[in-house]
């Protein structure tokens, strides 16, 4: 069978590219384009892109566990969308970072050791019940929304382009999390209690998101200095929690050094699961 004949038999029922869930919307920047046409970033820019990519990758990996387990079917679709968006952002950032070291997104995702991952502790936290997942989404998506909005002004064109694509998607994640936070905060006594609990167990990982590093000093005008996002984030979160009848919990901040590759006990399991197949067949194409 020739390849066009094969195409015809496989396509005979419609559009082979039609997924209701677009893997990459229309003409948006794709990781494949970055790999092909991207300009090689400096070592520092690559390190910065790696941080953002790792955050999205690990969060997406966590979120993907919800597929086929959501509280209702509509939510299965919504959580799947969000998982897919995050994975898309991760792929773009990792592909770009990898150009500095002649590595692909898959080299970075599957063949790095735990201490080489630079993600924040909050993204590796357990999904918990639906309320925990929603609060984590609220805290992280609000942060990423501010971050990408600022990053659109980056002097680095690729970072700014990835941010411009991603900002619209994290805005949807943020909105989705806000709607649920309000619904569950004001729904029943049980749901309010679960949301208070979710805030308590996740709040210790907030400070790490806003910690500046020497890397940010070296990337003036290119990277976004995390501390500059804090005031706006505090204000936004306070507003949402207030509307949901919830409060910022009074809990100490955890000592976290995710950016230096020091992770929680969760991370080993996350990576073991994510990397197992790829590592069993090194050098294979899929």
């Amino acid at each position: 069978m020739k390849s066009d004949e094969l195409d015809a038999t496989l396509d005979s029922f419609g559009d082979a590219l039609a997924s209701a869930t677009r893997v990459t919307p229309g003409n948006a920047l794709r990781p494949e384009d970055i790999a092909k046409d991207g300009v090689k970033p400096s070592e520092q820019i690559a390190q910065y892109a790696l941080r953002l990519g790792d955050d999205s990758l690990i969060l997406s990996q966590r979120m993907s566990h919800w597929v086929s387990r959501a509280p209702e079917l509509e939510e299965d679709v919504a959580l799947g969308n969000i998982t897919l968006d995050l994975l898309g952002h991760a792929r773009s950032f990792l592909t770009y970072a990898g150009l500095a070291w002649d590595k692909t997104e898959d080299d970075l995702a599957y063949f790095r050791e735990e201490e080489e991952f630079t993600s924040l502790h909050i993204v590796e936290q357990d999904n918990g019940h639906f309320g925990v997942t929603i609060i984590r989404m609220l805290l992280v998506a609000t942060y990423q929304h501010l971050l990408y909005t600022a990053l659109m002004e980056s002097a680095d064109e690729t970072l700014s382009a990835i941010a411009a694509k991603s900002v619209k998607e994290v805005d949807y994640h943020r909105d989705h999390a806000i709607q649920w936070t309000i619904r569950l905060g004001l729904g029943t006594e049980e749901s309010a209690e679960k949301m208070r609990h979710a805030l308590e167990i996740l709040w210790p990982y907030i400070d790490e998101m806003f910690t500046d590093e020497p890397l940010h000093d070296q990337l003036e005008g290119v990277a976004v200095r995390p501390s500059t996002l804090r005031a706006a984030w505090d204000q936004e979160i306070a507003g949402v929690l207030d509307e949901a009848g919830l409060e910022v919990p009074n809990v100490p901040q955890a000592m976290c050094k995710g950016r230096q590759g020091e992770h929680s006990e969760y991370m080993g399991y996350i990576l073991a699961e994510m990397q197992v197949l790829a590592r069993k067949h090194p050098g294979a194409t899929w």
Partner: protein
Amino acid sequence: MAATTQNDSQLSAVPSYEQEQAQARFDAIIGDDSRIEPRDWMPEPYRKTLTRQVSQHAHSEIIGMQPEANWITRAPSLKRKAILIAKVQDEAGHGLYLYSAAETLGTSRDELNDQLLTGRAKYSSIFNYPARTWADMGAIGWLVDGAAIANQVPLCRASYGPYGRAMVRICKEESFHQRQGFEILLSLSRGTEAQKKMAQDAINRFYEPSLMMFGPPDDQSPNSKQSMAWKIKRFSNDDLRQRFVGMIAEQVKVLGLTLPDPELRFDEETGKWLHKDLNWDEFMAVIKGGGPMNSQRMERRRAAHREGAWVREAAAAYANKQAQSEVA
């Protein structure tokens, strides 16, 4: 529900002139190849058959997410992971379209869901087999979604409007599903020895169950005739099955792999594809709940429902409060 009760009493009574008229209108619509819409009168057995078929189809989409969800976290490349998430998420969407179509026949989504969770409703038995390796993502896409397409394309012309229209949307996406599965197998078949072996093993395991997705042989499928008379179904089980097997017999050559069927051949005389006898005893055993995964599939669905109860209750309570404050 009101409509159902009304129709029941219509049926049990001696046919009145109005009922005969209604039946004649229904017959004329079917005869014209036109479509029955929710507001039209329809015979009760037609409504029941469709409700069962459409809801079973919806349940299959939902349970069918599980074997593939099983590999999302372990997908061996980020691109494959993204495609697989998109695919599985499409299936949730298909479930939604189909539940909506089923609801237009007068049974609520809650009731349909309850039928699934309590085991009163069935779903496609193929999802009771485990997805043991990554290559199963290929075999499921190529063979299972492929068989689903072959079954579903004729359903786009089903006589019940909402069902036919749901199928049009679904079929568009199913082609993407089949292709991504084929591409997974193609990459494996061009890969290392271990990958090739994995691909062949997956095809060996899914070949027969996928052929059985078309349902029992025609002479053992008593309801098929009526479904065809109502123009819900357009082709017989055996006819669809032989067409499908002919298609994959060609496609498997591109993979450089084989189908586990020494009897498979095209019969010039009848112009049909012939395949080996299928293990219908196993099929029936799986339908009755004895497949390797029936218990897990059901429990996963029940667990999601149970663990999500507080979320749905809270959402309903919140919506209530909102509605009240709007009135106030």
